[in-house]
């Protein structure tokens, strides 16, 4: 066992996979000697050398193009896009080239690659360095999408993403970088497409992702004191999506909430709510409610950013009001 931070877990997960597979390489801006702007790649160049941990120019298209070309010719790649907002600069490579080429060549090419990126707000970086864009990736056929909330999940899901033969967009949350946990020694390998029930409950189901997970758990503790038993599900993997776990929970509780950091429109929770409406409608005892950041770019000032992103207070109040309005949970 060792205490590890979320950011150290990124490096540990990558190192674990690079030791296992000597052909695996990683590229990105400032990832080698500098150890990454979020210090998520510290020490990797020392162990694996500058050929396998390779610094790039500020050229996001060239970075992901190189990852694509290498992956399709037998060299698996982890590519870092420093801030997830920057995915917009190279979205053609992600959405049109990497995601579509397998289908349009009828399976002639595979892309064993991981696009790692620092996602989300809460760190006062302003609108161009804070957005939660996991829904951008979720809506593109051909991609897989994960967003770990815990230190151990970072390692296990990194391993699963690297070992997956499809392109995976791996969202690391900026606000969680300093989170700590005791982590067992040895290899940790998780599975894509599996949601985790973090807290069992009988009255409501709350589905959350990444930095919203600890807030949902805290809200559930408070709701407990108000007499509402909340089940909290860490969605973890948007594609593949573990609808079985979600639907089983809603069938038990009859109430469904999502906590999303993305701006309101077309957030990942909209798809979940739609699935619940289609497939668990007769289990529902009231409306499904999405708790999201409003449809705004994120502001920089601490007071404003805190108002924008779903807080423990807002989650607790929204669930409580909805349940009370529906009459008895």
């Amino acid at each position, binding site marked *: 066992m060792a205490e590890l931070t979320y950011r150290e877990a990124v490096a540990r997960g990558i190192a674990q996979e690079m030791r296992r597979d000597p052909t695996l390489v990683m590229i990105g801006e400032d990832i080698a000697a500098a150890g990454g702007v979020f210090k998520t790649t510290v020490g990797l160049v020392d162990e694996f050398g500058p050929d396998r941990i390779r610094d790039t120019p500020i050229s996001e298209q060239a970075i992901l193009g190189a990852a694509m*070309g290498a992956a399709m010719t037998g060299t698996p790649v982890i590519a870092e896009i420093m801030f997830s907002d920057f995915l917009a600069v190279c979205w053609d490579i992600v959405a049109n080239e990497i995601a579509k080429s397998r289908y349009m060549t009828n399976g002639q090419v595979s892309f064993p690659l991981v696009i790692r990126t620092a996602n989300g707000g809460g760190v006062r970086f302003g609108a161009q360095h804070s957005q939660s864009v996991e829904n951008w990736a979720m809506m593109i056929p051909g991609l897989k999408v994960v967003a770990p909330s815990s230190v151990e999940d970072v390692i296990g899901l990194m391993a699963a993403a690297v070992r997956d033969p499809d392109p995976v967009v791996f969202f690391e949350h900026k606000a969680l970088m300093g989170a700590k946990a005791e982590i067992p020694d040895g290899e940790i390998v998780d599975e894509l497409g599996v949601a985790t029930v973090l807290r069992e409950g009988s009255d409501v189901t709350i589905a959350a992702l990444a930095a919203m997970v600890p807030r949902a758990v805290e809200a559930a503790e408070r709701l407990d004191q108000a007499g509402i038993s909340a089940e909290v599900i860490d969605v973890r993997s948007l594609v593949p999506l573990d609808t079985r776990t979600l639907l089983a929970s809603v069938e038990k509780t009859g109430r469904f909430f999502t906590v999303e950091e993305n701006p309101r429109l077309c957030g990942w929770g909209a798809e979940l709510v739609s699935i619940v409406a289609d497939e668990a409608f007769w289990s529902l005892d009231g409306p499904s409610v999405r708790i999201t950041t409003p449809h705004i770019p994120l502001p920089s000032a601490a007071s404003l950013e805190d108002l924008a992103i779903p807080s423990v207070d807002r989650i607790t109040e929204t669930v409580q009001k909805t349940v009370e309005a529906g009459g008895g949970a």
Partner: protein
Amino acid sequence: MSTEPSTDPRNDPRYDYALMEPRLPQPLDGSLVDAPIELETRLSMYERLQLLRQWGKRAHDLFLQNLVKGTTHLSLGQEAIATGFGEALQPDDYTFATYRGHAHSLARGIDPGAALAELLGRENGILGGKGGSMHLTDVSKGMMGSYAIIGAHLCTANGAAWSAQMRGTDQVAVAFFGDGTTNIGAFHEALNMAVVWNLPVVFVCENNLYMEYTPIDAVTAVARPAADRAAAYGLDGVVIDGNDPDAVYLTASDALRKARDGGGPSLIEAITYRSGGHSRADPGKYRPKAEVEAWAERDPIPMYRSRLQKLGVDEDRLSSIEDQVARAIDEATEFAKGGPEPGEGALMTEVYADGGSRWRN
């Protein structure tokens, strides 16, 4: 004689490119007849030229018969570039092409029938009907794909070259693209990274003088859209006659050798001309008549045929190559037309590596 300034925008060459000065081809370099190229190599290139030309014409005919839906971007007139490179490449080298990728695909040995069937949207198409005209690919032949959004595939070619470098092979990646690509950011990102990483990659700009419908010189800061940018990346600004298969073959051989020997990337600008419009929807009326006529005189096929005659190849040999290709194209057409349309079973396959499209449990 003074003329009144016209207020009619149609008299302004900025409005009507057909009024601009025609962009005429450079005179043919007759000395290439003595270039050190084996006659068998030249005959092989002539056969390849014929294949690319006759296939392109057949694709156009099938379009006129309404058998090709959607769009096509033909390589007619530009075949010498794919031909010269096709001859010079090793079987395990990588080709990355654009939506105008038929010639490059055929030059790497993609099956002509399966390629035509793909244009027809048939199950026996090289992509099972899922890709279409703009995405011809045959990984087994080193044809790593045809990509229809300008710029990205130069970055992807870097990746294939980098992979070869990491795996310690002597494979080279070649990216073909048009003059219009030189004005998009990915071109510049790709060149910079290729030089910094000393990648075994060759960038081939096919400058056919028009980006799509607009003359490239009307929208580009420099006269040679690729070659004049080369210095910015520490590369030589190489300009060649893209209608002369010998010139292309010699330049390609040099660039490929340099890449294989660890000498890094090359950027080649091959000047050529599209016989037709940008795509099937474009008759190309914006081009000055004198220009179209002058370039028709420089069509690579009759030019190369007469060079071979000068080198002593007799008429029978040449027409036997042409007839043999014609028969192959007829067979390819029958194969393509004979294929069924893909059924529902194909719709949901190959989104993910497990062969399916499942995104949930």
